[in-house]
């Protein structure tokens, strides 16, 4: 605990992991709320407006948490990673500034209109404010991914005489192929969280036999969006991202897959525990030649193992990287299974009566969060030992002027603060869910809402 680099890494890892629990739901729910508003207008069906209002409440609580845990992220580049910020600010300062002025202003302004303005705006203007919130949150995601993608796969930069990175082409940074792949994979992941949460809440009401009319809307929208994006998550986005990674970060791919030796016709390890010292997978469950096929489309292709990479360039925590990746990929596959079955039942008009399937949908709620978190851990632990891949090592990026003791002080502070936030969040969300979407009718009749 007296190693400053370790404390700064833990500090960022903890705050970013906690933070991303919230934006993944806001980014996932935002398009679904737009869908609900659209159906409400096109079918002139107020039940969908009610549904949108209910989800807007959950969205709003999430949004607050996302904002208050997001501000520390922007500060932390400077507070805990000063050397990195000083060297790379000329490049990544651009997307981070763009996020502030292009998406946060948009998002905050129109969220105000969306939450406060339903009575003051026409129905299309209110739809528009929902759409702008969606646009703002998705733009914000894009600028952040551009920043991360530049660290994963730096493009469009030059190096000044003092070693700092400067922009050569902002366009090239914005259209970094890594960013496009990562963005589509990540946003699809966020919609999976949004749709699983929506379906889970609907399934809960159906199992409780409460608010059944609204619940059927939630389950229907959740399952349809869920099946579409669960499939997109694996193919094409996950597939293309994985291939691109194998090409540009072969050491990461090898460590993710637990592949120590370069092999022709490499097998895909489904399960097993990596033993870094003996350089092998214990209790392996392998599909022969599958890895070569997945990456190169042929079962005889050679896949580079860790033996081709100098040891100092190996990812620093291979077991954790291996597990993150396997948890992500395993859950992603399971999501397709769950949603395909649910869609089939929905199509056969049997879903709402199939209590076993509603139980599965309800209990699936935490797993997209786990999968999204594991996915980000794969990306970030996989990038190690680099901050900027191949150019700047993590050990050269932290704030050397901030001692481990000071770092631990604020880490403990954040842990305490976030524990309180987590308790408040769970308490408030469970109240909203317990009250249900029907209470909204009283608002339409003009009863004061302040007590809500």
């Amino acid at each position, binding site marked *: 605990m007296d190693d400053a680099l370790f404390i700064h890494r833990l500090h960022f890892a903890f705050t970013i992991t906690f933070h991303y629990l919230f934006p993944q739901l806001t980014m996932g729910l935002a398009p679904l709320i737009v869908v609900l508003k659209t159906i409400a207008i096109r079918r002139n069906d107020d039940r969908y407006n009610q549904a949108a*209002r209910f989800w807007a*409440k959950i969205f*709003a*609580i999430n949004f*607050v948490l996302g904002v*208050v*845990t997001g501000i*520390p992220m*922007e500060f932390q*580049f*400077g*507070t805990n990673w*000063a050397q990195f*910020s*000083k060297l*790379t*600010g*000329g490049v990544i*300062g*651009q997307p*981070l*500034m*763009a996020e*502030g*002025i292009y998406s*946060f*202003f*948009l998002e*905050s*302004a129109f969220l*105000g*209109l969306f*939450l*406060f*303005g339903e*009575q*003051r705006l026409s129905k299309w203007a209110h739809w528009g404010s929902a759409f702008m919130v969606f646009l703002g949150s998705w733009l914000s995601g894009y600028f952040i991914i551009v920043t991360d993608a530049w660290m994963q796969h730096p493009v469009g930069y030059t190096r*000044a005489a003092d070693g*700092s990175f*400067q*922009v050569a082409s*902002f366009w090239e940074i914005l259209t970094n192929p890594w960013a496009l792949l990562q963005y589509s994979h990540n946003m699809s992941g966020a919609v999976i969280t949004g749709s699983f949460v929506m379906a889970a809440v609907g399934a809960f009401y159906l199992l409780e036999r409460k608010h059944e009319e609204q619940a059927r809307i939630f389950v229907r929208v959740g399952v349809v969006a869920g099946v579409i994006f669960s499939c997109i998550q694996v193919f094409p986005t996950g597939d293309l991202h994985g291939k691109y990674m194998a090409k540009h970060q072969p050491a990461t791919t090898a460590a993710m897959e637990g592949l120590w030796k370069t092999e022709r016709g490499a097998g895909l390890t489904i399960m097993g525990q990596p033993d870094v010292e003996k350089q092998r997978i214990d209790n392996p469950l392998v599909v022969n030649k599958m890895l070569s096929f997945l990456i190169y489309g042929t079962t005889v292709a050679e896949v580079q193992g860790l033996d081709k990479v100098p040891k100092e360039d190996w990812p620093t925590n291979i077991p954790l990287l291996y597990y993150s990746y396997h948890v992500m990929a395993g859950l992603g596959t399971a999501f397709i299974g769950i949603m395909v079955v649910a869609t089939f039942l929905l199509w056969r008009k049997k879903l709402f009566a199939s209590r076993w399937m509603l139980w599965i949908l309800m209990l699936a709620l935490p797993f997209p969060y786990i999968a999204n978190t594991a996915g980000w851990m794969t990306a970030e632990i996989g990038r190690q030992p680099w901050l900027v891949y191949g150019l700047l090592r993590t050990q050269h990026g932290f*704030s*050397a*002027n*901030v*001692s481990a003791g*000071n770092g631990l002080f*604020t880490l403990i*502070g*954040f842990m305490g603060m976030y524990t309180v936030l987590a308790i*408040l969040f769970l308490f*408030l969300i469970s*109240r909203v869910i317990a009250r249900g979407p029907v209470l909204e009718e009283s608002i339409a009749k*003009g009863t*004061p*809402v*302040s*007590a*809500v």
Partner: protein
Amino acid sequence: METLWFALVAIMITAYVILDGFDLGAGILHLVIARTDEERRTVIRTIGPVWDGNEVFLLAGGGTLFFAFPALYAASFSGFYLPLCIVLWLLIGRAIGIEFRHHVDSRVWTDFFDGCFCISSALLAIFFGAALGNIVRGVAINKDGTFFAPLWTSWRVDNDPGILDWYTVIAGLVALVALAMHGALYVAVKTEGTLNRRARKSAALLWPVLIVITIASLLGTLSVRPQILDNYRNHPIALIIPVLVISALTGMAAFSRKGNDLRAFLSSCLYLGTMLVGAAFGLYPNVMPARNDPANSLTIYNTASGHHGLAYGLIWWGIGMALAIAYFVIVYRMFRGKVTADASGYGH
């Protein structure tokens, strides 16, 4: 190019202080001017739809600083590590104070979040003022441009000062009083009846305190950083800034007494704006003066990004800010006018 970006960052920070300043000010006075639950809900409703957008100026200003002056961003954020983390915690406290109080209809719950909102707002004002005080006063900077400021050392302004000393405490108090005044005038604009009366009364009581503390801070500034006058000597036209500060101070009291709340509030905006611009003008081209050795000072020249990036950034910064201003106009028009207790739509 560096000078231009210095001005743009200064404008964004000024915009942040003026806009989020009234949210913080409303928070500082929240427990004093709003006594019943209904009044407190009204005060929160005056800032409810806008506070989050106002806070974005802090983020966007921070992002602009990061992009235009990365070395300054890196040095100051890591150097002021502890107070910045405390500011982050206070921002969390303020946000949940505003957003979560409505959710549960319970005396204990609402009182707790009112307290959160009030205390966090007051401490944030003090910290922001102290932060500016630190920049004007300067810190001990190493040769490589890094530093680490402890929260306090001897409370004196020497060559190795802490974040808090007598000077920065005064700066913090200026911010506390000025933002409380700003908030009082804003609440007066947005409310009627008892709340309006109490807000005006608080402003009237705060006014003489603000005069005294402003003078104290100016004298303090001249004693800890007499060099701040150099820019004014070379460009006497800038003496218009102190003239504007004085007229703004007069305007606040005069308009408020006459019952013209909006003009009084605009005077307060002018006061905050001119105080900040005055400080920025005096510092230029320094952005973080070194107390130990002036050669180690961080200036706009040794902390800026490359010219190519700065030039390109200007184009899309301009477009982005034009859009942002348009959103602000829409939102403020939408929620213009007085807020009353039974207005519908705090939609949580």
